[in-house]
């Protein structure tokens, strides 16, 4: 009996060590950022393409060029309700005073300055593919935005999903930081891939998820679901029959080819893409058209 107990204890310790290693927060390579300096003007389109304001402004805010990133919007999910935090430059309630590396770890690895995992409602798996220079420029731009002293509100997430450490296991299982489109046929599609897969994180809503909330990359952009909002359409070439011009125009103005206008969460995307260049909108359209037929 004592022998069995020792075995079980040994297994538990091994399991614990494995859990500890698997759930250890991985960080960015600080050498990648060491020589870079941020340029706020270049960071502005990065900010809009990444859609930061869509989730981090106060609820029901109208779109603006200089949003106040006070947080407070609520995002229902099967795991609980996430409440977007204040990411304005306020030193107490926002992210003022963070170092470049702290910022990069948050945005690209989903790890807070004190080493805790963030919930993947924050699309850091997509942002992991951002170029280091864009991360630094983004930070520089965000520092120019107005500060807000709105306090952070705790997420409403129950057991066991509230165990932050277990998110390391989620990342270990599902945080695939590679491109979905492995090869691109030309520079325009390469740019479109960067915008769609890394910055604009289209897949977060337009790709179905497994029961644990991991993206089903085999069905990339084949249609998803937003709790409280409903079905999100497929935008793969077999399902979305709009021309590249129609897609680019929709991203610019929100007008569908029938001249209905975008609704729901997509209105945020249009607000962001309307602030980008025509080349970038055309690049996203070219990327969507270049997706493999299922």
């Amino acid at each position, binding site marked *: 009996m004592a022998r069995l107990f020792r075995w079980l204890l040994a297994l538990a310790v091994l399991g614990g060590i494995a859990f500890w290693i698997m759930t250890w927060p991985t960080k960015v390579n600080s050498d990648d950022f060491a020589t870079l300096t941020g340029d706020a003007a270049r960071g502005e389109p990065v900010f809009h393409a990444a859609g930061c304001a869509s989730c981090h402004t106060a609820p029901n805010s109208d779109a603006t060029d200089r949003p106040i990133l006070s947080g407070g919007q609520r995002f229902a999910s099967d795991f609980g309700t996430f409440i977007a935090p204040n990411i304005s430059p306020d030193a107490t309630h926002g992210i003022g005073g963070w170092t470049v590396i702290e910022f990069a770890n948050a945005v690209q690895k989903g790890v807070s300055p004190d080493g805790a995992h963030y919930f993947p409602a924050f699309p850091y798996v997509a942002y992991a593919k951002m170029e280091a220079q864009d991360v630094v420029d983004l930070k520089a731009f965000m520092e120019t935005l107005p500060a807000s002293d709105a306090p952070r509100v705790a997420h409403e997430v129950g057991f066991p999903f509230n165990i932050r450490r277990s998110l390391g296991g989620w990342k270990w299982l599902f945080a695939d930081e590679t491109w979905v489109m492995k090869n691109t046929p030309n520079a325009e599609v390469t740019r479109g891939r960067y915008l769609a897969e890394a910055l604009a994180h289209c897949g977060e809503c337009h790709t179905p998820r497994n029961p644990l909330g991991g993206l089903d990359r085999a069905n990339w952009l084949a249609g998803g679901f937003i709790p409280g909002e409903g079905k999100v359409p497929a935008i793969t070439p077999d399902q979305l029959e709009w021309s590249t011009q129609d897609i680019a*125009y929709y991203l*610019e103005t*929100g007008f569908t080819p029938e*001249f209905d206008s*975008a*609704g*729901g969460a997509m209105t*945020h995307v*249009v607000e962001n893409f*309307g602030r980008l260049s025509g080349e970038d909108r055309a690049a996203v359209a070219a990327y969507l058209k270049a997706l493999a037929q299922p």
Partner: protein
Amino acid sequence: MKTKFFLATAAVAMMGAGLSFADGHVDPAVAGAIKARQGQMQLYAHNLGVLGAMAKGDMDYNAETAQAAADNLLAVSGLNAMTMWPQGSDNSLGNNRASPDIWTNFPDVVTKAGALSTAAGDMAAAAGKDLDGLRAAMGPLGGACGACHKAYRTK
């Protein structure tokens, strides 16, 4: 036998009740108001389609046609729509997508409607001059449509 007859009658009656519920007994005046405002949206879509086809390059730019479409938009945005939005004519009726928030945030709805009129006015001033002006005026029009749909149109 009697019981069977009763059950059959009850079943038919229940089916009938179910069907008439599904049919929706919306007050004809309210149903008409909903149709009227949806017609207004169709008028926007049609005239935006003319301008958008030119903006996209699907149709050659024609100053006269563009001006007419823009004038229509401005006129439609100027309609007094008060009676088209009766209290309670929201998405709970099952035949439209209007959020109940419209009736609780009315001043904001009026502000957003005003923004559409302003954008339509800018289009009317630009559309007949040249294609670049028309193109530039489309974005704010889309923004005005989207701002209201984001807040007040449900999926």
